[in-house]
């Protein structure tokens, strides 16, 4: 259980990466943007991939009536996410510590993982909802109002994951370094759970053997 406890303490610490590295990255490349414009989505706000990218994305988006990209104060998520991640890291480390001293069982490790996964899915759902709104809720006085072949107004939601063509832009949306660190950290908590579970089997066997010898 000692090894499992250490791994359980270590895993959540990987989520600290989210405080300096972006969670997600969206790039927009076009013939006249051979070096694509890009935004890095951090847990506390959207930032430039290269200097002035957000300003230039906003400049282009105004033609099709999209709102400017939100500043941290424009969305409650950017103040709540750091708190949630911080709490989960603390919680995970405490569970690991208690596991190390055998105050809690390995099942708590799985519990942390499940809670983190649920929060992650909720976060993704919220992020996707914002992107849909950002891409469809357009200014009625937009300079360019384009329609799909079926006559419905064209919308510009970036994909949650993968590539999409939007007018002259190729949009690529992928998890970034922060997300990969989070993934590794969460996998470590599963590893901790596995070692805890294996340890449990040994303990039971030991008990059985003790019983048989006595």
């Amino acid at each position, binding site marked *: 259980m000692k090894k499992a406890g250490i791994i359980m303490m270590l895993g959540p610490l990987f989520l600290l990466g989210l405080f300096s590295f972006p969670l997600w990255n969206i790039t927009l490349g076009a013939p006249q943007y051979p*070096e694509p414009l890009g935004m890095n989505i951090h847990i506390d706000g959207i930032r430039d991939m290269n*200097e*002035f990218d957000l*300003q*230039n994305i906003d*400049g282009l988006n105004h*033609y099709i009536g999209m709102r400017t990209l939100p500043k941290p104060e424009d969305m409650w998520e950017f103040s709540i996410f750091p708190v949630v991640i911080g709490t989960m890291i603390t919680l995970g480390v405490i569970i690991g510590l208690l596991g190390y001293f055998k105050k809690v069982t390995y099942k708590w490790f799985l519990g942390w993982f499940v809670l983190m996964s649920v929060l992650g899915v909720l976060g993704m759902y919220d992020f996707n909802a914002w992107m849909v709104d950002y891409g469809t809720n357009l200014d009625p006085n937009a*300079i*360019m109002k384009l329609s799909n072949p079926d006559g419905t107004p064209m919308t510009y939601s970036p994909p949650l994951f993968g590539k999409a063509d939007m007018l002259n832009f190729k949009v690529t949306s992928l998890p970034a370094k922060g997300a990969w660190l989070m993934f590794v950290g969460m996998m470590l908590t599963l590893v901790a759970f596995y070692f805890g579970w294996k340890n449990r089997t040994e303990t039971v066997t030991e008990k059985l053997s003790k019983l048989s010898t006595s």
Partner: protein
Amino acid sequence: MKKYKYIMMLLGITALIGSCGNQGNGNGSSNGALSSSAAEKAYVAPGEHDEFYAFMSGGYSGNITVYGLPSGRMFKEIPVFSQFPTSGYGYSEETKPMLNTSYGFVPWDDSHHPDISQSKGELDGRWIFINGNNTPRIARVSLSTFETEEIIELPNSAGNHSSSFITENTEYVVAGTRFSVPVPQRDMPINEYKGNFKGALSFISVDPENGGLDLKFQLLMPGFNYDLSHPGRGKSHGWFFFTTYNTEEANSLMEVNSSQNDKDFIAAINWKKIEEYVNNGGGTTVPAEYAHNVYDEHTHTATSTIKKEVLTVDPTKVPGAVFFLPTPKSPHGCDVDPSGQYIIGNGKLSADLTVHSFDNMIAAIEGKKFDGEAYGIPILKFEDVLAGVVKSGGLGPLHTEFDGQGNAYTTFFISSEVVKWKLGTWEVLDRQPTFYSVGHLMIPGGNSAKPFGKYVVAMNKITKDRYLPVGPEMEHSAQIYDISGDKMELIYDFPTHGEPHYAAGIPADLLAPKAKKIYRLTENEHPYAVLNPADARVERDGNVVHVYMSTIRSHFTPDNIEGIKVGDKVYFHITNHEQDFDVPHGFAMIGQNTSELLIMPGQTKTSLWEPKKPGVWPFYCTDFCSALHQEMQGYVRVSPSGSDVPLTYTLGE
């Protein structure tokens, strides 16, 4: 026996094929069958980048053009000494001071010899310097913005031709006078030239931090013509060499009268010694008048100051600092090999090249082996300093560059060719024709301790039939030769703008990564900049109106202005709010007596308009900036002078 015969025949045929092949390689340029491999060598595929930048002087265009090698594609014309309506250089209020001189505003010059800054004798790619020949000036161009940042005028100089060459660590940019003149200038008979005129050699110090130029001292030499120059390097660092002609000091029908002496001189100047003399208080400060113009990247504005004095040095007052090396036949180019050992005088009226040895020169000086003196300056014995003579077989040698592999390449104007020869043995290795009458040639870094000997570019004076005819006036032609093999191979031929006299080349990877893409709006310190569109406004002060205007795709703020009157002086101060690479905005006003402006992202430029007629007059963006570029326009309502239409300005109303 029969079999033996056949074998002999086969061998014979093989030998024939073999020799054909060799011939083909040697004359690749003229061989149609090999032209495809030449094409491959010069071909840079769409979207790919060239290996080298080539900065060519514009000659009578007064500017510098930037090309790629080996493709010969032109990337930019950098305005330096000439007004450039394309960008508004020399027309905008900010850049007019760049062309100020002691003679007032001079809109043009003749730019000749660019030279890239060096550290320890190697190209460092910080700045490029170039001389204005006609109204003597030296300019410094930034190699991150590719814009002219500084121009300094040279007093006591005329025909600023043996310029602008830099010392090994860019301590000085050196400029010599082609025409000797009375110093100080005065009203005197021309035929009293001899013994009375002086030739000023100017040493302009370069601030190692910001490149700032300062005319440190002028060496007042005898009244010869100082034609070209080059710095010593390596062992000869601290010396500078100038070719001279007209040591006869003739003043009329020069083509005959200045060609009478069998030998003119190369003047060897120990500038370190003179620097020491000057630093210890030597020299004489004399009154002078010359402009010093500096462009600030943050205020986007140039200022011009007139300086009032200059420090002059009499060469006879600094013993051991100046010597004359006799050199045959009116030498033109004066070139120093990468090691600094050989000084090559290209005797333009002869077939041969004279190569002096630095070591021999030092030995001769130390042995005091003088062959008389001229105006108190010791003349060394020709035989004592000579290292060798290149018997070229060509006619009219002008300039020599080096490949860093122990070879030198010399242009021959009269016989229209480039000749490759070996340093030390003086043997001719190869020769290739040029088209036609070649002047300078350039190997990237060929004037440094570390040449990049892959290509040589020959810059020709006569074009004739090389391209489709376009009337009597044609661009000059240049040829690119691959010199990576034993023999030179002509791989490309392209027209060049103006008259490139000399060029400077540098590997692209030394410049491209630090080329500036935008100016930061947050660093814009222009006094009339608008950093926020909300601050855009129009202010009147008597009959002077200042329009503080901003631009972004795709509108001007404000776009409609009323209350302007005939007789006003309207200054449009336009700030480009884009912070995106390659998104300039332009500005042009109907009937304006000046050029358009082309304003780079983050930059502010000012255009003066003096409306002459009442009416409603449009202005527009001249650079196709976006899909809505055609909508980027505005109107100015001009009322008769004395009318009381209030000053208003609007956007989107």
